[in-house]
């Protein structure tokens, strides 16, 4: 899997929709399909700061590849988590640290999600990036 492939799949998925209703329905469906996080993982250390709803992200690296799981108590935020899981899961650490947030524009989310929310997603992306960077530094 590579980030670029994941991204293009997501972008073309979103491009199928014309209305904001459909985009949200898609996001909500993504959220609903996300495997719930084990309660053990829903602790403060996995909580992502800077999101209005509770968001937990759990990162793990195996064979230089990221494995990321997450959850949220709000379904739209959960959809965003699912999006990031699809985007980053199984990507190589090296690739991830070179991605930037511009893909938010490319999948048309920056336009549709208000600042606070994209702040939320930015916080999630930051957490993933930092995890990968820390891994490389070691």
């Amino acid at each position, binding site marked *: 899997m590579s980030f670029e492939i994941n991204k293009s799949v997501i972008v073309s998925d979103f491009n199928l929709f014309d209305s904001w209703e459909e985009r949200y329905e898609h996001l*909500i469906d993504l959220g609903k399909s996300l495997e719930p996080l084990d309660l053990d993982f829903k602790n403060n250390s996995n909580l992502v700061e800077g999101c209005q709803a509770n968001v937990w992200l759990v990162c793990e690296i195996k064979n230089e590849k990221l494995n990321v799981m997450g959850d949220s108590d*709000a*379904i*739209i*935020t959960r959809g965003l988590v699912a999006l990031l899981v699809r985007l980053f899961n199984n990507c190589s650490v090296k690739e991830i640290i070179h991605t930037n947030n511009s893909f938010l524009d490319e999948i048309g989310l920056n336009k549709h999600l*208000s600042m606070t929310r994209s702040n939320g997603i930015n916080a999630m992306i930051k957490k993933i990036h930092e995890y990968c960077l820390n891994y490389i530094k070691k």
Partner: protein
Amino acid sequence: MFELKKIRSDFPILSKKRNEKSFIYFDNAATTQKPQEVINEVCDFYTHYNSNIERGMYFLADESTKKFNDTRSIVRSFLNAKLNEEIIFTSGCTQSINMVCFGFLNTFIKPGDQILIGKMEHHANLVPWQIASNRLKAKIIPLESSENGVIDMSDFKKKINSKVKFIAIQHISNITGHENNIQEICSIAHQHNAFVLVDGAQAVSHKSVNVHSLNCDFYCFSGHKCFGPTGVGVLYGKKDLLLRMTPLLFGGNMIGRVSFSNSSLGDLPQKLEAGTPNIAGVIGLGAAINYISSLGFNNIKLAEKLLAEKMWSALKAMNNIALSIKAPPQSPVFSFNVKGIHSYDVGTLLDEMNICVRTGSLCAQPAIKELNSTGFVRASLCFYNTEEEIELFVSALKKVIKLL
């Protein structure tokens, strides 16, 4: 008479479009919109007579000083206080409360004394008391609230005793829109020689306040929540209490004589207004109060009652809405949950439909917990909102529920 169309045109922002559609502002409890008069008054100050106040002796300073102090009279009569020097200008309700917490409480509280605080208070009327009582080794006792978020009077009567020295309560709740019986609370408190501070942040835009008949010791509010500018607020206090108060801030304009060996404080109200105040803000607040007066609280109450009734029955008619209140509110504030759905999701989708509501803990985490919630959707209305907006809101809500 109260002509809604005319009134809406007084508020330029209300004709704003987003994505070519008009929007619905239902977050009035967070901050109200501003009538053109207020905006003009602020501009006018900066454009025509901007200057520092009190100390200058030239014509511009005369004009700004006069306008500034005229506002003190406007606020005095707005609250029906006796004396101009009982009106202190602050940077907001939060500063007003902190001034009493850290400048008055310490003048008489002893370790072991008690402070009663409602369980429904906004953080601004809870956290400062926690910090102050911690420092002074006093004890905070929460007051239970009955089902609509007002102080449970029987609990209050049980808890008041000679150790209770202070009571901090809100006039109207920012969550439930229900009103506390301030007059009775003050009267009982005074029988026990306790002082009462009333947080009027959610009251002054909805009803006429009379500190004289309430007989509270302190009353405070924010300008931005009653159609005035941001960064300005009011602390009313009975003169003899303000005289006993230690200022929270020290600096220019508030002192008598200053030398390195010692300095003396000036008179009220300056003593409690250190530094250059928010002159434009204060003057703009005067315009806001004049605007309110031009409408009249009778008309405002009437208009808001209609809105509240309509909203109440509309929400009651939806069976997946869990309201935080059991009876219609005195001011048009509605906090609720859509069953099984996070408040945040509701707010997100309402925003897509150009409807502004607040979601989450509403700066009152203990109150939210008390109401068995983790966060509400709050629609807070104001006289300039319309019945049509309520209808649009309700159908938007139905659409949200279908989407989620």
